[in-house]
């Protein structure tokens, strides 16, 4: 085709086609067709667009497993290993979570992603005044090794992957995980879980920060370097673009801001003399695969893999392919789902899963169809697992690697996104890097502007959502069952924690907490790692609240700057 259709011939044919149909073009549905990032889309894409963009297969795509890993991070991708399927869940108590997790494992998704409640995420034990009304509401209340013994009873950490959506106290979560794995007799070399541990996006979007940025980054680097040495297959840092998207960032901002966060962690690690090829393989990107805008989401994953590989190789001098190849764990966002005609969310989830499959992601998570009403019910979670299984096992879309490669449109869009993300990355560098952009509120402001624009487009109907702002139903449909945390959970959890604090060896706890305080007070170096004393503390049944309080005493707390 390439050989036969010379660009000049195509150009002539296109001009005459346009001339012939000029009247019909005037009747198109919209004056302009834009992606979520505002990229204007042409009517049709041809080899001319690839020529315009200087498309070069070996440079821009290349074979799977080869630099810059655009078509895939391994030579065989899903032909040898299907994606990992998971669900993000946590019911109010460790016991109730344990019951669901066992159902999930049986359903063929032996990969747990722990959703913690807000007090646990902020390092407040259930008995703190600030925890009042919040215990167990949006996830599991889990703050000690005792809770882990209940939550993971009968779940073999050597066989089941466990990921924790845990950030400011990430180290405490991983310490508890390792401590429990040790109790089960699992060799650390066999542990394959993740921890989110991405504090920078907490400052930008998600809001679950505790300590100021500098000591927060120290915790991240300490945890990643500890795991690189002691738990080689574990991924101790998920750099998240997902929450930026959920907060409203358009795909270009989502990609650029999250990549710059990743680069900030690498810089911090290098400043402490930690080898990039030891550090970088432990990182995975938590991305978004929303149903809207389908092709842009796929192109975004491809462009991000390219940029990441180039930066790791050229700027950070990473040599290993495991360091350069960007792994993805992507899912669609709760924001993409609606209460109105809620069963339509299953369709949105399906399309989202398809986006993920066509993007070459390693792990997938779609949301519960009833999530717009509360914590997803078991039924909705099972349907989500089945949704990704249908996409994975029934459609055949995973039989060929990077099936959209070479599409005039998808390659043009990938190049266009790549250019725009690079431009934003340079802008971030000019502003002094990710940390500066957080401190000045640049990221937060840009995302707020994107979100406001999106809302206006949604309310005016430019962005259509079926059943929500068009094709609405007269009858309000609600799920028969909506999950709700019982208000009694709070009292139960308070009494559990008080009992634990009475029964454990409090001398041992005090000694361990003192050690944490001393290590945190000393300068961060390549060898002064906080993880060993935190491990000792959780073994002694110290709570997350107690460990975080000790760190608060040394480092203080972060006060958010106002971006409005």
């Amino acid at each position: 085709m390439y050989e036969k259709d010379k660009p000049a011939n195509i150009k002539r044919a296109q001009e005459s086609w346009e001339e012939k149909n000029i009247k019909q073009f005037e009747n198109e549905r919209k004056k302009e067709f834009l992606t979520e990032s505002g990229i204007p889309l042409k009517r049709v894409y041809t080899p001319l667009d690839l020529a315009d963009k200087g498309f070069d297969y070996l440079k821009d795509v290349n074979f799977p497993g080869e630099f810059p890993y655009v078509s895939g991070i391994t030579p065989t991708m899903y032909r040898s290993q299907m994606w990992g399927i998971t669900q993000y869940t946590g019911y109010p108590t460790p016991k109730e979570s344990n019951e669901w997790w066992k159902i999930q494992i049986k359903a063929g998704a032996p990969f747990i992603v722990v959703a913690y409640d807000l007090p646990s995420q902020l390092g407040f034990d259930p008995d703190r005044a600030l925890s009042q009304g919040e215990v167990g509401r949006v996830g599991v209340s889990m703050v000690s090794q005792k809770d882990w013994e209940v939550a993971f009873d009968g779940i073999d950490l050597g066989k089941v992957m466990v990921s924790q959506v845990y950030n400011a106290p990430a180290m405490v979560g991983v310490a508890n995980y390792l401590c429990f794995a040790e109790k089960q007799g699992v060799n650390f070399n066999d542990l394959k879980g993740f921890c989110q541990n991405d504090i920078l996006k907490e400052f930008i979007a998600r809001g679950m920060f505790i300590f100021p940025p500098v000591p927060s980054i120290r915790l991240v680097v300490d945890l990643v370097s500890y795991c690189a040495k002691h738990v080689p297959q574990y991924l101790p840092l998920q750099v998240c673009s997902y929450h930026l998207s959920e907060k409203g960032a358009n795909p270009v901002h989502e990609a650029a801001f999250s990549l710059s966060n990743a680069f900030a962690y690498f810089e911090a690690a290098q400043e402490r003399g930690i080898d990039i090829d030891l550090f970088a393989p432990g990182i995975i990107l938590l991305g978004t695969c929303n149903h809207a805008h389908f092709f842009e989401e796929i192109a975004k994953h491809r462009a991000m893999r390219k940029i990441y590989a180039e930066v790791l190789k050229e700027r950070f001098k990473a040599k290993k392919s495991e360091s350069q190849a960007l792994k993805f764990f992507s899912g669609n966002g709760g924001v993409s789902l609606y209460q109105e005609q809620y069963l339509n969310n299953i369709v949105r989830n399906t399309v989202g899963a398809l986006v993920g499959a066509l993007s070459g992601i390693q792990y997938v998570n779609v949301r519960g169809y009833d999530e717009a009403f509360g914590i997803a019910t078991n039924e909705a979670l099972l349907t989500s697992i089945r949704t990704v299984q249908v996409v994975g096992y029934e459609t055949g879309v995973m039989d060929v690697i990077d099936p959209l490669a070479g599409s005039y449109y998808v390659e043009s869009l990938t190049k266009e996104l790549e250019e725009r993300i690079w431009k934003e990355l340079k802008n971030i560098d000019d502003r002094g890097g990710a940390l500066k952009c957080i401190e000045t509120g640049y990221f937060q402001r840009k995302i707020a502007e994107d979100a406001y624009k999106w809302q206006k487009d949604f309310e005016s109907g430019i962005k259509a959502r079926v059943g929500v702002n068009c094709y609405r139903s007269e009858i309000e449909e609600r799920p028969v069952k909506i999950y709700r945390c019982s208000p009694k959970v709070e009292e139960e959890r308070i009494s559990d924690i008080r009992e634990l604090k009475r029964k454990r060896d409090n001398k041992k706890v005090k000694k361990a907490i003192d050690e944490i305080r001393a290590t945190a007070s000393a300068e961060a170096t390549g060898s002064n790692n906080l993880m060993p004393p935190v491990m000792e503390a959780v073994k002694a049944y110290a709570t997350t609240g107690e460990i975080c309080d000790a760190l608060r005493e040394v480092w203080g707390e972060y006060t958010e700057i106002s971006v409005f």
Partner: protein
Amino acid sequence: MKSTQEERRPIRVLLTKLGLDSHDRGVIIVAMALRDAGMEVIYLGRRKTPEEIVTAAIQEGVDVVGLSSLADAHNVLAPKVIKLFKERGIEKELVILGGFVQKEDIPQLKEVGIAEVFGPGTKMEEIIHFIEENVS
């Protein structure tokens, strides 16, 4: 002339997150929309306790307090805000609640004094209209 100017004093609104919940996409959008509608908006930010909110509202002399809650703590924390206003002798403050609130909770929230609850799917103009209609 003077009275016309007084009538035109912009409505002052304090918006804030309530409790530990950090989902602030919605409340920031509302802040921008109210500002564009000509209101003076003070956004207090995240992790605010009922005590902090009421103190700030009184100091700032606002006409409206908008609470944002998406993590199911509203039944405990929103009535506390109303109670604290009453304890400080302020009965007429217009307190509205936005975010994720279960439908069955709305009657009891209104009974304790929340003027209106704006759930998912609320249009920005509905909130603007409600505030303009209800600020005396």
